[in-house]
């Protein structure tokens, strides 16, 4: 799963498979982080009396 | 370090000599700490690395013939080490060793998904459905060179790989890099009272196994000896266990044929 686990080889199989996986996980992670941060900003803006 | 030629350990079992006595099974169980239960009658849930099958030609008396066929792990090479079971293991718990041709099983890595069992057509791979428990005094006779397995993992014949390791270490201590043919032999080979099992390096023309079957390197190790055959060769598993039989029906039982296909021996 990680380059430091001993069975890891820098071959096409690992790069394609793990590349695809980490790509998907990154998108999911970034998407959720964006939503949470934006929601916090929006909510704090609302508390300040700046209704959107 | 000097590059050594890769070995390809294999086995030749002469079915004309096999009496079906089962000594190979017993020797294997003792050597490899194979667990057993009080009632081991259901062979589908018991563990045996070596199993002896009884084949019959299916003809009525007086033409009935029988043949006993011992079946260890075939140590399939497949195509370039792509053996059926190794490629499917999700956790890299089994490996095809290019230097010996042996398919290993890492018990502490296996998490028991049993995909390898589904992949193996020979039913060589078996699952530990129960905790391995030996009668109290028997634990003292367990082989210290072989780790016992735990419930929930798959195990299989290893061609007594621990014997190879011990022999190699001994040879290295004596300053030798190569083993003599008789220095590494499996437990079943040595135990067979009929001398039906021969073991050695298929890549070494000096070894008996090579001379007996004459594997053809250009055709995936197919035997040139017309009396020799391998189990399920047509599937492309490329096994390293060869059988010898002078009887055509036995050789034919080694593989599957569509009815119309020529009844000539495929080798």
């Amino acid at each position, binding site marked *: 799963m990680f380059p430091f686990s001993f069975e890891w080889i820098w071959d096409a*199989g690992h790069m394609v498979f793990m590349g695809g*996986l980490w790509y*998907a996980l990154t998108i999911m992670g970034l998407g959720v982080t964006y939503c949470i941060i934006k*929601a916090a900003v929006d909510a704090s803006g609302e508390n300040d009396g700046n209704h959107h | 370090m000097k590059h050594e030629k890769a070995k390809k350990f294999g086995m030749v079992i002469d079915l004309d000599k096999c009496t079906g006595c089962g000594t190979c099974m017993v020797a294997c169980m003792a050597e490899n700490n194979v667990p057993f239960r009080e009632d081991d009658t259901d062979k589908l849930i018991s563990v045996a690395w070596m199993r002896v099958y009884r084949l019959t030609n299916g003809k009525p008396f007086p033409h009935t013939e029988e043949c006993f066929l011992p079946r260890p792990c075939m140590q399939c090479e497949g195509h370039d080490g792509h053996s059926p079971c190794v490629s499917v293991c999700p956790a890299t718990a089994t490996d095809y060793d290019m230097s010996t041709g042996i398919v290993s099983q890492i018990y502490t890595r296996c998490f028991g998904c049993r995909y390898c069992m589904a992949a193996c057509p020979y039913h060589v791979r078996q699952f530990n459905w129960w905790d391995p428990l030996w009668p109290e005094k028997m634990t003292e006779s367990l082989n210290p060179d072989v780790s016992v397995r735990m419930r*929930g993992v798959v195990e299989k014949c290893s061609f007594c790989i621990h014997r190879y390791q011990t022999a190699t270490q001994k040879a290295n201590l004596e300053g030798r890099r190569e083993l003599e043919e008789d220095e590494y032999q499996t437990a079943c080979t040595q135990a067979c009272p009929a001398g039906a099992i021969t073991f050695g390096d298929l890549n070494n023309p000096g070894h008996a196994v090579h001379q007996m079957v004459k594997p053809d390197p250009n055709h995936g190790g197919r035997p040139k000896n017309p009396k020799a055959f391998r189990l399920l060769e047509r599937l492309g598993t490329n096994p390293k266990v060869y059988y010898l039989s002078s009887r055509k029906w036995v050789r034919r039982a080694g593989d599957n044929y569509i009815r119309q296909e020529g009844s000539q021996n495929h080798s």
Partner: protein
Amino acid sequence: MDSALIPKGVKRCPTWQFVLWIGAVSGVLLWGVVAMVLIYFKGLNQTNMNNAYGFALWIWADLAVIALGGGAFFTGFLRYLVGKDELKNIVNYAVLVGFCCYVSALMILGFDIGQPLRGWFIFWHANVHSMLTEVAFCLSAYLGVLTIEYIPLILENRQINKVPFFHHLAHNMHEIMAVFAATGAFLSFFHQGSLGGVPGVLFARPFGYRTGVFVWPWTFFLFTWSAAACGPCFTIFITKLTEKIVGKKLVKDNVIELLAKISGWMLTGYIIAKIIDTVYWATVTAPSKGFAFMDFYTNNPGSIYGIWILIAEIGICGVIPAAILITDRGRKSKTALWLAVLLAIIGVCLNRWVMVLQVLAVPVLSFESWFTYFPSWQEIATTILPVALGTIVVSLSYRYLPVFPQERELNPYEPAADDVLEPETQELAEAELKPAQA
């Protein structure tokens, strides 16, 4: 009692009735939990699996629920990426059902491994060449996507939505849902396919083995295709079943018909591909390994694995539902629609059964005979366990979350006195429903 949690403007059954229903389902759940405890503590000897039948009921259940849960990714794909806007009225439910299916699959996989505490090895020591590795990764990641898709729905609960942070979070998640749906479709394509690859790559098992393209056997594509075709049928089926149980219409006919039509054409394409695959396998692949087509369907105990199984899978449960669903009249007839979705569901489940269990039942060594298997009660109970769990999740979601955006319109309802008394403006109530439609 729990009226403050129930979405505005919809009617739900009395609390006692709901509690009774959940209680009854929990009884079944408990039965499953007992079996689960037995399996975890005593091991897989509690099952009727054996060394020849190493894969059995559980693996079938995994494959089947994932195929049926395929409605989530495909409906999401159609809604967010193809732009079939009407499907917004069913996508919530598709996601919810999909979520339950995937939780079930992971749960069952957890039972099925001999050393559950080492389950993480499949990720940590991953063998990227194994189809099962791909299944594990994509399945877990996709469950993550489904959770992300389900969360906004939870946040739209009347009380939770009052918290500004949750209100905005739900809104923001809806805003970028297309990104998650695309990721879900990507992951689904691979894990649905890998499940097909599981039997397809077994080159020493002539019944399952298929040739293919590059590293993927044809079953890889057939499994993805059939999940996309039959998953929506399951979504329709569960929607219709829910409507029957709660006794009211929840989704408009045009939405169901659109999904049924797409499903019908997908099924038509799939069945044609499946027939071609079967013919090629029967005439080229299997004979090259020494097996005649009928070897796989004859001489087995009780003729369980007869040719009927292929006729049932492809003909009765493939061609017939496809023919119904691609015609306007078929989709509009209630009976025909019910029949078609039911047959499609049975068909895909049968396909998964055949592709895993028959593969192991067929003798490969010429001197062996067929292997048989019947699950133990522990296996059956643990397979039903996630179904009970899913039923509870769906029941709770239906009761407390705005799952069906069209429910209020289809079932005009005079709110009870306690609802009216609550000092909430109409504007707020409207805001509750809007994100669900986004």
